[in-house]
């Protein structure tokens, strides 16, 4: 329906190249041992998060008190944020790359207004995120982070259970990912999420970000999520019919036009 935005197309091409270059070699290190029946049975003791899906509480997200405590920034990043905000006064930095169908990455992917789904399997908690059809794989089998992880949008995540709280440790974010609007990160960024249930259908995620280049102290944002037992995650292919865009200065674009007409017939091959 619409043309793939150029930046997304470049990313897609880059992804293909990596997949090809990687061949059959596993990128995640040594393969874990086969799961035993006891490993599968142990999953039944985990908190009941796999029933239904969880959506960030919109009243908390958009209503009174929805704005989190702002981060305490180092002078360098405070100046960058000030420049970002000055740009907003000129109509710049009002639209981000998510309008071009580039996922926001961690931590903002966890704070989008669409639901999340938890999936348990031995040694792993998988979070399927409706926004941009993203997936986070949190390895709970005791492995450390890789010595030299690739930078990715959602980072490299390992986790463990402290009672009924899932503690997730994430590093190695793609350089363009913002931890908040106008706030980037360095290669030292480190995110710890503490996820626990606060009621039968209530979940809370406290996200603490540490980055000595960016933050003068760790920054914690706590968000409530509500269970929707009768919902399921729906497909979200952003390139399907996207009319929105952001240019290199973050100015908003909006493509009008009638998409209902079938594509013109291609020229016959000779």
């Amino acid at each position, binding site marked *: 329906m619409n043309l793939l935005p150029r930046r997304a197309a470049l990313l897609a091409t880059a992804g293909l190249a990596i997949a090809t270059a990687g061949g059959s070699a596993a990128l995640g290190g040594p393969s874990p041992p086969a799961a035993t029946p006891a490993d599968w049975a142990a999953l039944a003791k985990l908190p009941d998060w796999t029933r239904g899906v969880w959506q960030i509480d919109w009243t908390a997200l958009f*209503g009174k008190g929805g704005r989190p405590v702002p981060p305490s920034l180092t002078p360098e990043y405070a100046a960058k944020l000030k420049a970002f905000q000055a740009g907003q006064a000129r109509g710049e930095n009002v639209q981000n790359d998510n309008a071009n169908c580039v996922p926001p990455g961690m931590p903002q992917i966890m704070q989008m207004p*669409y639901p999340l789904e938890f999936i348990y399997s031995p040694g792993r908690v998988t979070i399927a995120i409706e926004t941009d059809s993203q997936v986070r794989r949190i390895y709970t089998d005791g492995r450390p982070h890789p010595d030299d992880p690739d930078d990715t949008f959602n980072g490299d995540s390992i986790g463990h259970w402290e009672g009924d709280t899932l503690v997730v440790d994430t590093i190695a974010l793609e350089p363009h990912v913002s931890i908040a609007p106008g706030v980037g990160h360095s290669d030292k960024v480190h995110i710890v999420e503490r996820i626990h249930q606060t009621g039968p259908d209530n979940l809370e995620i406290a996200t603490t970000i540490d980055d000595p280049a960016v933050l003068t102290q760790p920054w914690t944002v706590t968000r409530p999520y509500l269970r929707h037992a009768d919902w399921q995650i729906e497909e979200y292919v952003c390139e399907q*019919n996207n009319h929105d865009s*952001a240019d290199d200065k973050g100015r*908003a674009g909006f493509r009008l036009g009638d998409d209902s007409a079938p594509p013109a017939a291609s020229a016959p091959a000779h």
Partner: protein
Amino acid sequence: MMRTCLRAAAAVLAGAGALAAAAPALAHHSTAMFDMDHEVQLTGTVKDFQWTQPHTWIDFLVTDSSGVTEYGVEGMSPSYLSRNGWSKHTLSPGDKVTLSIHPLRDGRKGGFDASITWPDGKVMYNLPRRGADGAIKP
């Protein structure tokens, strides 16, 4: 049911400013290009209704003395709308309805759908509303 919706809508109006300010995060993009403080009513005919991610889309034809004008109107995503009573069958080509839209700031013929009113008075909301209890319903 409709009465309840209208009451909820009335409750929403008081909080509309807060919602408009919150709206940027509602979609996969900000609402900078739309005038979220104002709604414009368009009465016309649906040319096409696209039940697609990341946004639904209505090609809408408005006829007046100067001829036919086509509007492009963005809406919330199918996943959001399907959880709020909409379906791919909510609109069909040829349907005659009134759209209330937040118009494009640049004056082009388009905007973001706030609600749809049918000739029999039925209303369906596209943007989230604040309920009578103050909660914003997902």
